[in-house]
């Protein structure tokens, strides 16, 4: 055909099949651009919504590498006349992107410091050998640590501890299927629950703080904790109970496996002076986040920690470079710049207006209805998209929904952590799923219960506790 060999035609078809979602996205984008614009929406605002739709398709289906999606978002904004190249570039790099970069780099340093052994001993000392207590211990520690460090780091630290306990109970995986599920889910969901506790718990929290700042609002580290941490603490026992009752573990007592784990940990290398210094630097980072983040930004402080680790020779640049996913960082920068464009062009306001037109009467009648709408949309998107990307694109829209931007912004950030339904919703879930001990169906089996409870709990929480403290 037209001089093309069968091999080149076959190669082209393969390319087209692999990139079909990119082709669909472009076709949808072109059709939408050619359609008449809705009334009350400027050309720039309409274009930014079309870019948002096509970018979401690309992020969900990943037909092209993440950095290519980021470049697509940046280029289409410039060629689409939304802003100048300089304007887009300014929105691309900010403190939230610094934080995501710093957080991914800190993970590389922290994971290699042997904290896992100490944590294992700590948990088992407190919980003893009763399975339900151990699950509670895993979930609590994962939640508390991930509220400061970042869920992916905690999941990577906790996974080998959990897996070792499972292996010591039985090497036949069929005999410990439910035990594996309760321990591994307690790690994954503990990480998700904790990640909303403080601004440093996840990139999405920092993105939301960034949007607050752009809207002239300010929320300190302490204020965020005052608003969000009780929600973390309330969820811990409830989620533990749901996990244990969904997957009834085969063993109620893990006596010998706990003993074996303690012996293994005791035999492992002891903490060195260098390990202690890394802990001290990390404590300094947390102190910096708590007391100086309003002034310098969370990202700047995270990068200061990374700088100190490199300076002290605690991590090699090659290691950081190898394990830091630059594509993810660039993509988050691009989605934040798109979120900023959606806000500045008036598209966010228009989209929020459409929601109000649809549900306005319900929102007036039931004050919690706007919370419910935001939680449902955010939870849905967070389960098929990355949670940070969800907040980056939804934040500017949800903040226009109700007058109290702080309230709805925090609700958006909190519900973006409800990635319970799929194995790919959050890095913590993907990490435990990669162990091969739990199936993707298990996420849905457990996820809908915890998701439903968390949604109801959040609505009650924000409409009672927040009213009480604010």
């Amino acid at each position, binding site marked *: 055909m037209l001089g093309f060999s069968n091999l080149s035609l076959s190669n082209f078809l393969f390319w087209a099949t692999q990139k079909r979602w990119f082709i669909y996205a472009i076709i949808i984008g072109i059709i939408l651009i050619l359609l008449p614009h809705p009334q009350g929406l400027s050309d720039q605002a309409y274009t930014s919504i079309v870019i948002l739709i096509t970018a979401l398709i690309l992020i969900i289906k990943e037909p092209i590498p993440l950095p290519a999606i980021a470049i697509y978002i940046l280029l289409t904004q410039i060629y689409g006349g939304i802003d100048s190249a300089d304007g887009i570039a300014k929105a691309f790099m900010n403190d939230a992107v610094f934080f995501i970069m710093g957080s991914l780099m800190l993970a590389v340093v922290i994971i290699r410091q042997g904290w896992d052994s100490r944590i294992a001993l700590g948990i088992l000392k407190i919980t003893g050998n009763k399975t339900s207590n151990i699950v509670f211990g895993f979930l609590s520690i994962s939640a508390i640590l991930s509220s400061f460090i970042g869920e992916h780091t905690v999941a990577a630290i906790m996974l*080998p501890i959990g897996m070792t306990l499972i292996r010591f109970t039985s090497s036949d995986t069929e005999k410990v299927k439910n035990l594996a599920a309760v321990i591994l889910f307690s790690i994954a969901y503990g990480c998700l629950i904790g990640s909303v506790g403080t601004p440093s718990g996840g990139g999405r929290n920092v993105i939301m703080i960034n949007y607050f700042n752009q809207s002239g609002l300010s929320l300190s580290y302490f204020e965020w904790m005052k608003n969000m941490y009780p929600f973390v603490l309330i969820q811990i026992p409830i989620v533990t109970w749901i996990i244990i009752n969904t997957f009834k573990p085969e063993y109620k007592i893990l006596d010998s496996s706990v003993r074996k784990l303690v012996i293994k940990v005791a035999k492992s290398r002891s903490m060195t002076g260098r390990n202690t210094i890394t802990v001290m630097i990390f404590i300094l980072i947390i102190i910096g986040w708590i007391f100086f983040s309003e002034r310098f930004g969370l990202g700047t402080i995270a990068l200061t920690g990374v700088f100190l680790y490199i300076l002290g020779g605690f991590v090699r640049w090659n290691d950081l470079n190898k394990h830091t*996913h630059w594509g993810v960082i660039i993509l988050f920068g691009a989605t934040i710049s798109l979120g900023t464009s959606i806000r500045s062009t008036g598209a966010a306001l228009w989209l929020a207006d459409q929601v109000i037109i649809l549900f306005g009467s319900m929102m007036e009648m039931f004050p919690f209805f706007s919370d419910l709408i935001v939680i449902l949309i955010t939870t849905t998107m967070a389960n098929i998209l990355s949670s940070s990307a969800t907040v980056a694109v939804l934040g500017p829209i949800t903040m226009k929904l109700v007058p109290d931007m702080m309230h709805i912004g925090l609700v958006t950030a909190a519900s973006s952590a409800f990635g319970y339904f799929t194995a790919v919703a959050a890095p913590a879930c993907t*990490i435990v799923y990669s162990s091969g001990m739990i199936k993707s169906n298990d996420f849905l089996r457990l996820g809908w219960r915890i998701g439903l409870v968390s949604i109801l709990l959040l609505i009650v929480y924000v409409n009672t506790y927040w009213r009480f403290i604010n």
Partner: protein
Amino acid sequence: MKILIAIGSKQYSKSTLNLGMKVAQAFNAKTTIIDVGEKISEFSSQLVELAQDQMESWDFDPPGVDVLEWAFNYLSDNSLIDSKQIETGFPKNRLIDDGEDRKLVYLSGTVCEDVNLILRNGDIISELREEVQYGGYDVTIVGKSQKRNMSHDLLQYINSSILVVNQYNNEKFNRVLLPIDDSPGSMKAAKYGIRVALAYNIGIDIFTVIDNGVSTEDDSLKVSKILKLIRRSGVDHTYLEEEGDPVEKIIEKANDDKIIVMRASTMSPIKRYFKGSKPLSVMNKCNVPILIVK
């Protein structure tokens, strides 16, 4: 000759490995056994890698190593690899990361040339396609997948002959079914059919389906050349000419006790993509192993 055997799990891949190694033996082929692990979202891929590094420090193997170990044990149990390697056991700690997102183990075969074990992660079709291009394999052997479009994608995009194992029972198979026509591919299919028949010490049922009831002199000449080749190979064979729908006839003849060996479609890739092909229809409908020769 180079053969690629794709396995996926201990539970479902035994028949694929059984038949695959038998074919490899028949062709005295350089053989590679590959396990393609699940694709990880790019968002988490590097974090998962970091977590797996951490798991290794607690003596846990990366996902997929257990499948390679199982394949190694299969090769050991059937004495298909060098006895020295059997003694040293599965070289878990000597998996070579070749920097191309592949982990490798090199082994020396006994009944066939070198046997390699490879671990990759990602989309199965992309990974197999890349591996076939990279290694220049002649035949790719896979189990039947429940996934829709898998057969289509295999035939369309993998640039080697494809053997889909389906339901394979070593003791049950008594004949090779070789549907032929006047196309040049039929001769190559016949050569493959002879090798398989010799490996299993079974006969070949050759048959031609005349679509419109008319057979030209030229057709007969090409078919007779194939028959001559098979006769000379000394393999027991029968020949039959039938009229009707080729796909239906092949499935009917295959019953549940034959291995089908047939040529790939000669249609252009574009036509094949939209219209499908006879080999694809046979592959989708039959339950016996089928080797599509490209």
